[in-house]
């Protein structure tokens, strides 16, 4: 027993004494290549890189080291290679400027590639003109924080994703700024992760795109002016709080598109100036509360294939159409929302309207089946039809209604 204790003690000492060696890399120093410095290092060391331009054709990190840049040294992929590949545990890449990765039809090439790793961090880097930005594959507990990722993708086929995560667990993705990629953030088979305070704008396809990624939390992210908005699919137990979905215009652009999402929570989000704020297809048991839908074409489009979703205490303000749907079957509930188009009264003065509100206008159904009818929007005949429909519902689903609409906007 004592022997064992000794061995443990000695090995601990050995680890600690080996700790905190710093290897400096620079053009004027003895070690001028980053890869060489990494080869010289041992677990726990720090490699400090002086400013300058480094073209090293895919730096490979397989040790638990910290690779740190002083004043953003430039790592260049010469439009041919991936720049850094990491395959280890407890490593950090921090403070670099990575630019011009290669582009390949066969392999995914990116600026920072993290494979089969554990507790790897990519902090505070600037990525310019990358195919994939940060690529995480089969890893756990990695942190991607405060990176600025910019690409100049022109079409979906040619460009990669800003932050691409595949089959990973417990990732933390915070405060990144992503612009001009195919999908800003892309997750497939990613679990238990936190996505917080990221800004994803002007991407060629989606601001964020995830599939088969369960139990993730998305907080305070901004998705703005992406070609097709945001689309998320086939996932459950998603939590989305205080995100902003802004300015996604176009015939296939959605603030957010939910397809086959179940058992989730969507709250405190802002949907502003989208063609369709929130589109739901095949979704079940989602709680949507305290969201703000502002100045959208359609605030919410909910297909008849959705069931047991609950909309409560949301604000619908200045939308052209509040709710759109494609059938008469209604399995969802709407309670206690504020609708600025509500024309009812409140005799009891309890801030709850005394007559139910029908948020689906007849004309939105007409446009849904016959888009060319948009030309007659807001004409006298259409207003008359809408008014008649409000009094005697025939085309619109009678059951899609808010029985307790509130009279004043809910302060959120």
């Amino acid at each position, binding site marked *: 027993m004592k022997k064992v204790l000794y061995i443990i003690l000695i090995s601990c000492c050995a680890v600690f004494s080996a700790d905190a060696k710093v290897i400096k890399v620079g053009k004027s120093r003895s070690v001028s290549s980053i890869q060489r410095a990494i080869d010289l290092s041992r677990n726990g060391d720090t490699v400090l890189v002086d400013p300058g331009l480094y073209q090293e054709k895919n730096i490979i990190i397989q040790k638990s080291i910290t690779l740190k840049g002083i004043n953003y040294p430039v790592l260049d992929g010469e439009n041919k290679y991936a720049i850094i590949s990491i395959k280890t545990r407890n490593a950090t890449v921090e403070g670099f400027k990575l630019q011009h990765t290669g582009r390949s039809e066969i392999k995914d090439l990116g600026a920072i590639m993290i494979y089969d790793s554990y507790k790897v961090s990519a902090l505070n880097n600037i990525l310019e003109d990358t195919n994939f930005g940060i690529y995480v594959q089969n890893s756990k507990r990695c942190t991607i924080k405060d990176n600025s990722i910019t690409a100049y993708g022109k079409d979906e086929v040619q460009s990669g994703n800003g932050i691409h995560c595949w089959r990973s667990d417990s990732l933390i993705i915070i405060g990144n700024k992503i612009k001009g990629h195919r999908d800003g953030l892309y997750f497939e088979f990613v679990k238990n992760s936190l996505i917080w305070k990221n800004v994803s704008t002007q991407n060629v396809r989606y601001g964020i795109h995830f599939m088969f990624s369960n139990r993730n939390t998305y907080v305070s992210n901004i998705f703005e002016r992406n070609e097709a908005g945001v689309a998320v699919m086939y996932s459950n137990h998603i939590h989305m709080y205080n995100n902003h979905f802004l300015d996604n215009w*176009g015939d296939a*652009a959605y603030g957010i598109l939910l397809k086959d999402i179940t058992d989730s929570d969507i709250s405190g989000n802002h949907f502003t100036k989208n*063609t369709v704020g929130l589109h739901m297809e095949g979704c079940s048991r989602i709680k949507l509360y305290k969201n703000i839908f502002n100045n959208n074409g359609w605030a919410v489009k909910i297909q008849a294939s959705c069931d047991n979703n609950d909309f409560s205490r949301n604000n619908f303000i200045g939308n052209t159409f509040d709710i759109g749907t494609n059938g008469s079957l209604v399995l969802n509930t709407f309670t206690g929302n504020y609708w600025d188009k509500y024309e009812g009264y409140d005799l009891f003065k309890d801030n709850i309207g005394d007559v139910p509100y029908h948020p689906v206008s007849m004309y939105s159904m007409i446009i849904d089946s*016959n888009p060319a009818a948009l030309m007659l*929007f*807001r*004409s*006298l*005949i*259409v207003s008359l039809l809408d008014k008649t429909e409000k009094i005697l519902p025939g085309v619109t689903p009678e059951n899609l209604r808010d029985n307790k609409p509130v009279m004043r906007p809910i302060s959120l």
Partner: protein
Amino acid sequence: MKKILKYVIVDIIQNKIVLIYTFLLLLISLSVFNLESNSAKGLLSLLNIILILVPLISIIFSTIYIYNSSEFIELLVSQPVKRKSIWLSLFGGLAASLSLAFFIGAGIPILLYHADATGITMILTGLFLTIIFVSIALLAAGITRDKARGIGLSILLWLYFSLIFDALVLFFLFQFQDYPLERAMVFFSFLNPIDLGRVQILLQMDISALMGYTGAIFREFFGNQVGVALSFFGLFVWVVIPLFISLRKFDKKDL
């Protein structure tokens, strides 16, 4: 011609109905802007008024005015004045005074509360609609000598442009649902000045809804400079053609 024009304008401006019309518009616009929580919503309510009320008042007032001044017209015809200049100054007088009424009643409140591209498009559309419906009124009044029939005809024309035409388009849309009708729709909108004006204003307002689906084609057509110019040219044509036809009629008319 100048003298007649001046006389007509002064005569109409003193008219009680025009004063009431101006005052009513002013009242509606101000109350709409003050009642609604945001001015964009006020503008939306005003849109309906502009698209319905303005053409109605313009066409009916003008028709009645023409019939009421038939003795004055006969007097003028007996003088050495060209018929063309009599008719044109009647048109000019009506158009100018009603436009002025519209501008004071609706234009100024819009400029006060919502002076951006949408507001200005709205004012322009309102002015155009005023002038177009004066021109159509002249045509209606020129066709028949009977006052009752003339007024009936002008009401029918108003009804046609603001309701029946759209109903027909809607009917057409559903009959030919299976065909791509977007471009046809752009064409149809040129056949009705009210629709043309409305689409113009909507493209400024409900852009997000219009952007999706068909919106793309509307946007493509009406959204750029050429489209805007073309649609205002369309409105201009709507002024000129009825006026021209009624002028031809008046020239040959046996008074």
